[in-house]
Each structure stands twice: as C-alpha cells, then as structure tokens.
C-alpha cells in the first residue's frame, strides 16, 4: 500500500447541480403511480381489509431501509477503512440518511397497520422491533457524524460504527424472535403476508421497483450534494 491515500480528485470548480434531477422526478412519479394503483386499481385483501394496502409501502420500505441501506453503509464503511477513498464515505453518508427516512416510514406505516390489525399502535413484533433498533442505530450514526469535524475522522469512525451495526442486526433478530416465541400475545401478532392474488402480486412487484428507484435516486442526489459540499470546502480552505 502506498503512502499516498487514494482520494477522489476534488474538481477545481464546484459542480453545478442540475435544476431538475430526472431520475428523482421519474421515480417520484413511479411511486405516486404505484400508490394510486394500490389504492384504486388493486383489490383489497378479503381478510385484512383496506388498510392492508399500506403493505405496498411498508414492505418495500422495510427491505430497502433495513436491508439495503444498512448493508450499503456497512460495505462502504468497510471499503473506506481499506481504501480510504472519500467517495465511499459519501455513499455511506447518503445511504444512512436515506435509510433513516425509509426506516421512519417503516415504523410509521407499521404502526398504522398495527393499529388496525392488532388494535394497538405498537407491539413487539419481530420485524417492527428490529426496525426500531436499527432506526436508533442509524440515528446514532448520524449524530456521531455530526459531532465530528475532521472529515477523515468522521469517515473513519462512522465506518467502524457502520460495520459493527451490520454485525448487530442478526443478534437483534435472534433476540426478538426468541422473546416473541416465549411471550406470545393473545391476539395474532404477525401481520400475515396476504396470499397474493395476481393483481396484488403485480402491484407489489411494481411497488418494489418504484421504491427501489426512489431509493437509489435519493442516494444519488444526496451523494452529488455531498460531493458539491466537499468541493466547495476544498476551494475555501485550499
């Protein structure tokens, strides 16, 4: 390994951000489209009723916020510790913030769905509880970054946290599942995945695609914003 760190060459001028990001606009339209389709064109599940439609928002958010965002944070963090490339840190930063938003959506939609299915806004259901602790971890990640000034220290320490957070996830899952197994609550708790009719399945798949597009579009915009910020700082302090 050479003594020079491989760092993305900061541009000599601050890159201009486009007024309209077409990917973001497109993905937002896609999400709106899917929501409309879910609300108006997809039949509701016979057993669970209309509120079940929230599943089309809840599940994709969960997959993206919990699994994708955290994995990206951890992998980019690990790669940063090895390669010391600032770009990796920007991806991790973007992923954490976008992931945090998606996790909040998971908790809110899970709560609403829970209120209608279980009668209560909260219950110690495995996925929801895991999402809650992951939400705390990502929040502490963001707070840690905010508390550090030096960009190198910020990147390095949050990378360590990101990698450890990924190690934590299976333990949280195991703990919550075991806890649930020993303390079953009187009402049926696991929001059962509705048996999907073909229309519901296609809406669900479209929802996954639309939300994934939105997720990546948001990360891309956030990344560009971070790159512009870093370039501006470099010019100010060079």
């Amino acid at each position: 390994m050479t003594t020079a760190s491989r760092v993305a060459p900061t541009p000599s001028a601050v890159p201009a951000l486009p007024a309209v990001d077409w990917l973001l606009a497109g993905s937002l339209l896609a999400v709106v489209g899917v929501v409309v389709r879910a609300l108006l064109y997809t039949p509701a599940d016979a057993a669970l009723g209309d509120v079940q439609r929230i599943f089309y928002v809840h599940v994709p958010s969960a997959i993206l916020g919990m699994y994708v965002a955290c994995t990206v944070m951890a992998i980019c963090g690990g790669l940063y510790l090895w390669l010391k490339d600032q770009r990796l840190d920007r991806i991790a930063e973007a992923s954490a913030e976008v992931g945090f938003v998606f996790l909040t959506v998971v908790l809110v939609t899970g709560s609403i769905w829970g209120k209608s299915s279980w009668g209560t806004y909260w219950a110690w259901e495995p996925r929801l509880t895991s999402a809650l602790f992951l939400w705390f971890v990502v929040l502490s990640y963001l707070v840690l970054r905010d508390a550090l000034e030096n960009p190198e220290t910020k990147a390095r320490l949050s990378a360590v946290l990101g990698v450890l957070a990924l190690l934590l996830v299976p333990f949280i899952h195991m703990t919550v599942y075991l806890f649930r197994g020993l303390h079953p609550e009187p009402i049926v708790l696991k929001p059962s995945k509705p048996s999907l009719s073909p229309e519901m399945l296609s809406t669900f798949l479209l929802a996954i695609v639309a939300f994934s597009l939105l997720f990546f579009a948001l990360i891309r915009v956030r990344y560009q914003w971070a790159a512009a910020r870093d370039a501006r700082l470099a010019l100010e302090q060079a």
Partner: protein
Amino acid sequence: MSTGYRSPSFLRDSWRIARKDLRIEFRTRSGFLSASVFALLSVAIFRFSWDPTAVRSLDLAPGVLWVIFTFSGLLGLNRSFGVEHADRAMDALLASPVSREAIFAGKALGNLVFVLGVQALALPTVALFFGLPLGPGWLAVVAVAVLAAIGLVAVGTLFSAIASNTRLAEMLLPMLALPFFVPVLIPAAQATAAMLAERPLADAVPWLKILGAFDIVFVAACTVAFPFTLEE
C-alpha cells in the same frame, strides 16, 4: 535490533495496562464510588416504586437488575479513555512498541473488573431489597452476570474510544452503545428470571447461547476495529 529489549507481548502489555488503570481507579476511587452509589440508589428507587401486590418480585427483579447494570456500567465506561486523553498519555502509549490490540484488551480488562465490582455490590442489594429466594440458581446468575459483563465491556470500551473523539463523549456513549446492549440485556434478564424462578436450565439455554455468541463475535470484532478508531 531488539536484542537489548524484550519484544512486546500481547498478554503482558494488556495486563500491565489493565493493572495501571485499576491502580489509578483505586487511588482516585471517584468512578467506582459514583457508579456504585448510582446502582444502590437505583435499586432503592425501584424498590420504592414497586407495588408488590401488582407484580411479583421474581417478575420485576431481573429487569431491574439488568437495567441498573447497564447504566452503572455506562457510567464506568465513560472514564476509561478520559485518563488517557487528559494529559495525552495515550500518545506516549501509541508511540511505544505496545500493539493497539493490547491497548484495547488492557482497557477492556480494566473496565471488566470495574463492572464486575459494581455488579458484586448490586446483585446482593437487589436480592435483599426484592426479597429474592437464595437458592442454587444464584451460581448460574453469577455466571450470566459475567458473560453479560464481557459483552457490555467489549462494546462499551470500543464506543468509549470512539466517543472520546468528540466533545459530547458522555452523552454520545449511551446513544451509541445502548442499541448494542439489547442482545445482552434481554437474554441476561430472561435467563436470570428463569434461574431465579428455578425453572429447568433448558429454559435459559437459548438465551445463554445468544449471550455467548454475542461475546465471541463482539470481543473479536471490537478488538479488530479498535485500531481504526485511532488517528493514523
């Protein structure tokens, strides 16, 4: 080149650092005293706010015990890197042949003794205040306490190192560490409850497995991660 010197040894170096920290703690005593007083006060407060007719002591006590362990442990963990940063003694350590992993192990070992010391005071106090039955389950409870302390200290020492880079170290440490304490806290409380109620050991075993796995994974991970928390 090192003919006139001894090679650094992980065991010897970490033991020396742990001994140094414990000696300092023994001389100043402020950390241990405040953590212990906090623990004992908390037990008393929980005892006062407990309605014995509504909840059985065996149902409440394990949770109380582990919440107190966690928070008094955090109090203790906060000081572990403070002494190194005060006069930049850490810089001298980093400029010596001692390996970074040995520094972590030494710090963690010192913290472990500290945490076990507070537990040694808190456990009997909880037993006394909550009128817990003194049976054979207690030996197992002590074993759970040691296992859980190892996990708490591994994670807490690492996050203490991270947090000491910021100005809000005392506030940041609980925020960083508490989500990581969940797979320690819940299994420990559940296992303790099972043991005190003298349920068959098989009830506690799944929880012990999670605790043990957590200890192995995180002691290794935190030791490997520690050098990355140092500026280089």
